[in-house]
């Protein structure tokens, strides 16, 4: 069973019962113990402490925080005992609490009584989690508070390494040990701090991981992108630990590439073209031509650079078009489509565009810049 103590200096008190103690917060500590032990020890120590004994971690926390003195939650009886508590005892969530007000739910018993399916539909996964908590039915392992460990490996070599393979082999070994230690503590890595001789380099990871192959590949790409300047005699690797990644893929969320693969691909590209030349495309919030998505419903292929054209007009409307790649009578035309803006900048724009169809059925977009005409691209 698990016991939780909620009192100032709870952790020291808890440690006197058991070395395996989880510190929930400054005043709350939870640990594994038998009911008899706790009853005896608590009575003789602090008469005002709030102590609860339950089969699950969360039920013990909930009871210790909210009931005075000693509370025993018999297995199977959690919902009844906790039910008398007001809903405010649950972790705060404005949206869900608003719904409680609306539904007239005051106590945990009221909440626990609601059908699970209905709660899931109306309050989502968080609501369901809270309901299980209210029923004392939420089960999770204990997360003991362990003094922060350092995840570091280093070595001094007898002879300098001037090739990448043996170096990677060495780093692979370090990673194998360090990741095993991370796994033992349910942790992952958020960055690798590498020191070759006196040269330091930091590899920030886009997501927490302890995948050795992936980490090793990253190191390899990094060394390729930024080659070492001299043979290596000393190697040091420090892993900065963090909470592991927990991902729940949504049924309707768009599928994205595996983050590991994406990062590796990006690493390869960085190694090829240089770090500064890798950017993420983003849509500009403007109507400036070429900077934003066109308001057309058809897919559009830009010519880079635009094709210079000769255009014959009649009453301001284009009639014939000549360019390097296409020419002929314009059979249909729509426009002008007019945009202007950025009037506060020296490069303010003011442009008229036309969409046209040539006799062969091809669709083009042309625009005029001063006296010159250009074909901007073609509609697929």
């Amino acid at each position, binding site marked *: 069973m698990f016991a939780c103590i909620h009192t100032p200096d709870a952790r020291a008190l808890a440690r006197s019962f058991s070395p395996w103690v989880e510190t929930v917060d400054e005043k709350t500590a939870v640990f594994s113990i038998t009911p008899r032990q706790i009853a005896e020890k608590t009575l003789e120590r602090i008469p005002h402490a709030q102590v609860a004994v339950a089969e699950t971690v969360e039920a013990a926390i909930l009871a210790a925080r909210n009931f005075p003195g000693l509370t025993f939650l018999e297995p199977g009886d959690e919902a009844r005992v906790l039910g008398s508590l007001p809903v405010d005892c649950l972790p705060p969530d404005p949206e869900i609490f608003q719904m409680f007000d609306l539904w007239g739910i005051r106590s945990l018993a009221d909440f626990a009584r609601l059908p699970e399916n209905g709660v899931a539909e109306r309050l989502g996964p968080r609501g369901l989690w809270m309901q299980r908590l209210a029923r004392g039915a939420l089960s999770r392992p204990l997360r003991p508070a362990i003094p922060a460990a350092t995840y570091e490996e280093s070595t001094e070599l007898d002879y300098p390494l001037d090739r990448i393979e043996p170096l990677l082999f060495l780093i692979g070994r370090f990673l194998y040990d360090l990741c095993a230690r991370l796994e033992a503590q349910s942790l992952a890595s958020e960055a690798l701090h590498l020191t070759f001789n006196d040269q330091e380099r930091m590899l920030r990871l886009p997501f927490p991981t302890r995948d050795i192959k992936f980490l090793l590949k990253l190191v390899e790409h990094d060394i390729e992108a930024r080659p070492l300047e001299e043979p290596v005699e000393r190697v040091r690797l420090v892993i900065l630990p963090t909470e592991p990644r927990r991902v729940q893929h949504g049924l309707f969320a768009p599928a994205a590439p595996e983050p590991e693969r994406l990062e590796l691909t990006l690493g390869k590209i960085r190694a090829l073209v240089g770090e500064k030349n890798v950017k993420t495309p983003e849509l*500009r*919030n*403007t*109507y400036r031509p070429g900077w*934003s998505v*066109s*308001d*057309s*419903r058809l897919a559009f292929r830009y010519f880079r650079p635009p094709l210079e054209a000769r255009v014959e007009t009649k009453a301001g409307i284009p009639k014939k078009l000549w360019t390097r790649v296409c020419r002929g009578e314009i059979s249909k035309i*729509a*426009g*002008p*489509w*007019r*945009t*202007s*803006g950025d*009037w*506060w*900048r*020296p490069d303010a724009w*003011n442009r*008229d565009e036309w*969409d046209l169809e040539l006799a062969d059925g091809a669709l083009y977009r042309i625009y005029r810049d001063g006296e010159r005409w250009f074909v901007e691209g073609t509609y697929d």
Partner: protein
Amino acid sequence: MTDFIDFHVRSAFSFLEGASLPEDLALRASDLGHSALALMDRDNLCGAPRFYMAAKKLGARAHIGAEITGADGDYYPLLVENRTGYQNLCRLITSMKLRAPKGEATASEEELQQYAEGLVCLSGEGAPTRARFEKLVRIFGRRNVYAELQRHFHRDEEMRNQAAIDLGRSMKLPLLATNGVRHATPGERELLDALTAVRHKTTVMEAGQLLARNAERLLKSPRAMAYLFSDVPEAVEETAELSKRLDFTLANLGYEFPKYPVPPGETMNSFLRKRTDEGARRRYRPYHERARRQIERELALIEKLDLAGYFLIVWDLIEFCRREGILVQGRGSAANSAVCYSLGITAVDPVAMDLLFERFLSEERGEWPDIDLDLPSGDQRERVIQYVYERYGKRGAAMTANVITYRGRSAARDIGKALGFDPASLGRLSALVAHWGWRDPADTADRQFKQAGFDLNDARIRKFLSLYVAAQNLPRHLGQHSGGMVICQGQLDAVVPLEPATMPGRVVIEWDKDDCADLGLIKVDLLGLGMMAVLEESIELIRDHYGEEVDLAHLPQNDPRVYKALQEADTIGMFQVESRAQMSCLPRLKPKKFYDIVVQVAIIRPGPIVGKMLHPYLNRRQGFEKTICMHPSLEPILKRTLGVPLFQEQLLRMAMIAANFSGGEAEELRRAMGFKRSQARMREIETRLRSGMAANGIVGETQDPRVACRQLRTDRLRQRLFEVQLSGGVYRGHSQPAADGVLSSGDIGERRATPRSAFSSRGCDAVGMEVPSRAGNGQWPLVSAAGV
């Protein structure tokens, strides 16, 4: 010629969603050859009176409408077809606004249905779907729904247009071309973008696609619109048909001032006559023949102009105050009326003072008289306001609005923010423009900006300057006028939309005092005046401690002690003449009679000071300079003020004589001199003034002094006259400690500029009494007046 009328035009009264004033839109439309135009602001009719007046002057028709935000997130462009439609639109806006917090008002479908009669609905700029069109037809009726087409050269808009054309034709709804106007001229698009950034609390650089896509939302000529819609000519032709159909204008507003309920067997005239007679017997002791004749003359004119109801309603307010023990005094030109004096509205005897009744009410001017009431500020004034609401109903009375417009600092701050200036530059820019007369940007801008460390060659600074100038006078939001109340026979919300005021229990109409005057809505000003509270408590103290009853209507006009104090500039605590400027001038002007006090109050004003009239007057008065009049024709007007124009009335009469201004033009001049309206209007009048004077042979330097009228703000002669008389009177002799006591007592004293200790202790020392103060229980202690 093609006839096209734009029915979807937003003005700057859409508050940050339009960039042109209604007057400018009307003028531009008229220049472009529109025979009519419809104003359609967002959820309000604030700009309608100004739009209507401007169009009327230009000989164009002004259709009225509003874009109403629906609870479904859509909006409904509504046009008024007839009086019922107008009343419904007013009620719809009122009901949605009184329900929701400011800026969040929306109309439900039930409300739209309830107030749909007499309104025409356009399909708007949203996606034209069959469901939406059917909903509009269900609410407004098939006859009253138009499929709206707009063309601003966007691909997606054209797709919407094609869908609207198809739907309109299939549902047999007429097509109507509009341009969804947001500004009058192409240049104003930049201002619109800046205002959009202000509205979204961002900068133009960050605003991105919130800004206009191009500058096509301007007023276009009928020809341009006909060309634009040459493939659907019926959409343009329909606009002329719709214009013929909408026969409502603000000329037939349906406003009626409430009738005063009189006992059976009485008419309002006979009732007023009786009340006046009773009052006159109390006021005039004895009730001499001159007063009798004057009152008879006034009553005859009041009857002729059918104004008895108005006087009785004001009298009713005065009676309420009397019953409740609230000190109230009329101010303004009402002081010229013996009837007002008899009814207890004012405390000045115009017969004895030789004041001209025609200044208050004249047959020729054809406008409602203006009676302003001064009340002690605070709770007592609020009680009177609540009494008006109670008596005429929550929707029968409301406060007038005060349109807060962009001026100096506010314009600089908002425009500067929109252009992305950092806070430090913003501070410097607004400080710069606050001291700099923006009226003449061309003269001084370059130098002044350079001095402040800004380079006018920088594109952004130049843009700032031009937008700052363009933003002047644009409405920013609607406030509440300090005291103007409009009362209506029946429901005021059928005449003008009402909005809730920030103060609970108050309702505000959407028009300001000039709009009300233009459209013939009558208002009574209930103004709060700290000095009234001082007087009220002084009278109480005098009564309690000296056993003397002070009647403000019978204060002596020639108490030498008052004039001695004035001449010695011993005026701390004397309303209107206690400022440092006043005190420094008093020993030079040396008031000897009542009219001198009037001059004294009028002369320390921005107008006479900027117009360089102060020194000539003082020099002439002290005999250092000869009294000469600028032009012989002006002598009768300027004689009393030694040839120097000091009062607004003098300027108006000078304009009438020297520049042949008609009464109406003079009235326009008076309004332009008012604080709130455009400087452009003032310049326009100044040009007319100068040409008129030139026509009369007044040229060269002689013209110049009149330019000062630009600065001569509403200087209400008799208002000052009256107030000074009151405070001066109470201040006489042995009542001084009482007045001092009240002034030093805290809540009133603290609001005044003069330090409390300065006047209280000195005033009391003079008569050897202790400085009185309120005891902990809020009651006045007994004053120990040893020396009195």
